[in-house]
């Protein structure tokens, strides 16, 4: 058996929006370093809720409770400062959300500005170039770095948001259906990009699109009504799912 390096561990993680109902129920799973893990499941099954627990997004809403443990390199995220967690765990949202008043250049560096970290002019230039190159946007925008981020197309905007997250050199990148608002060509670009990026960062991606999970992820989680039904190698899960509910979802009977 090959040895794996765990980077993120869910231990009986629960999330509840109200006292009566749990949106995520006792999820336990270990995420391997430098992999892409897809979280699949029908709408309302708790995929995004689980993802948003990882960077403590739920802390913003006082009525949401997160229980259990989520370990980042062995340290429980839930008892850490949200700001420290979020610096180490980047997030990309469903709708591309570049900051509308900032230029492309400033958008990439916005993480530093928001953390009050000052960079020299040289460092700024290097960071912008490195990040935009790693999302394959550099050649398209290198002459218009001073234009507003919203000037770009949807797919470019989403890549800009990925670059913005990568600029902070996160350990983990959380992606909440990053391509669902994009056309197929832009989606293809982002998928190729993610396969490339897994060398430097661990990616956890929520997706509706089973094809996408199959194409890019090495591990998959299948969630249903808040439970983690099945978790394992993507190839195995698609060819030979062990749980009946996974099988039904993958064959299109539910969803």
């Amino acid at each position, binding site marked *: 058996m090959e040895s794996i390096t765990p980077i993120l561990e869910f231990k009986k993680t629960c999330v509840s929006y109200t006292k009566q109902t749990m949106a995520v129920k006792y999820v336990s799973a270990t995420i391997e370093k430098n992999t892409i893990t897809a979280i699949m499941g029908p709408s309302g099954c708790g995929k995004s809720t689980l993802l948003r627990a990882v*960077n403590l*997004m739920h802390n*913003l809403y006082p009525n949401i409770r997160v229980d259990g443990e989520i370990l980042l390199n062995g340290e429980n995220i839930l008892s850490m400062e*949200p*700001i*420290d967690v*979020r*610096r180490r765990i*980047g*997030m990309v*949202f469903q*709708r591309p*959300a570049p*900051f*509308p*008043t*900032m230029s492309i250049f400033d958008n990439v560096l*916005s*993480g530093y*500005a*928001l*953390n*009050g970290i000052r960079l020299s002019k040289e460092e700024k230039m290097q960071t912008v170039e490195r990040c935009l190159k790693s999302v394959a946007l550099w050649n398209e925008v290198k002459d218009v770095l001073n234009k507003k981020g919203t000037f770009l197309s949807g797919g470019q905007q989403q890549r800009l*948001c990925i670059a*913005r*997250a990568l600029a*902070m050199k996160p350990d983990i990148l959380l992606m909440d259906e990053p391509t669902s608002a994009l056309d197929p060509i832009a989606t293809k670009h982002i998928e190729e990009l993610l396969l490339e990026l897994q060398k430097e960062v661990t990616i956890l991606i929520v997706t509706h699109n089973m094809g996408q999970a199959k194409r890019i992820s090495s591990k998959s989680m299948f969630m249903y009504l808040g439970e983690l039904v099945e978790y394992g190698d993507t190839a195995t899960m698609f060819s030979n799912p062990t749980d009946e509910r996974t099988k039904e979802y993958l064959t299109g009977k539910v969803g």
Partner: protein
Amino acid sequence: MVKDKLMLWSICLLATLTVVPLLAILGEVLLRGYDQLSWTFFTEPTPTAYKTMEAIKTGEPIPGGIANGIVGTMIMLGMATVVAIPLGILCGAFLAENNKNSFAQFVSYLTDLLQGTPSVIISIITYIWVVVPMKGYSAIAGSAALCIMMLPLIIRSTEETLKILPASLKEAGLALGGNKARVMLKVQLPAAFGGIFTGVLLAISRVIGETAPLMFTALGCSFIRFAVDKPISAVPLLIWEFFNDPNLQELIWGASLFLLLFVLTLNLSSKYLAKKWNQ
């Protein structure tokens, strides 16, 4: 078909009827005030009673202008705006971020109340709070009254604009590790700038014509003065003074036209800027 036409014509007629008084006001002020507008009208202070009477006797146009009022209005508006903008934006941001907190709800009710408070009450309060302790009327007291009147408008426009920003913007900022204050300052407020700016301009055009608050606080002054701790003039105060002085009544129209044009410019530019910002 006949019914449709009838409906259309009656709507047009009613719409015209509502526009008529507005146009009549504009026309009256323009026609009567147009003659008085000249360079000296904006550079000279109000004429003394003696000079005016001499001019009337010899049949010359009334000398002098409203420069003392313009200077006073600008000083007081400037001070009021400088104080009201940061306070109003901070309060608006607080209300937008904590709309479930009971203290915020209380503040929100107070803001509504303040917006509906008659200006004469605000003037009396400012008189007791500022004029009495300072032992005299002053530009400071006048701007305090105007500032209080501007606050609810700036608070509301900030709050409403922040609330309609997509939540993803704030979450994206926080997800990068920013604290709430930095995300507010660097992401949310810049994105809301258009709406806030429009609110500030509307607040200015709302208070620029206020007369009652200044009667109780700034009092008036017949020469150009830049001191902020002394009584000072303002354009709406001058209109009131001209009205009360039979010799100066002709100057009312020029001063009114100036106010009207100023407010019109503010409104048009705020619309234009808001549009530009949203593109």
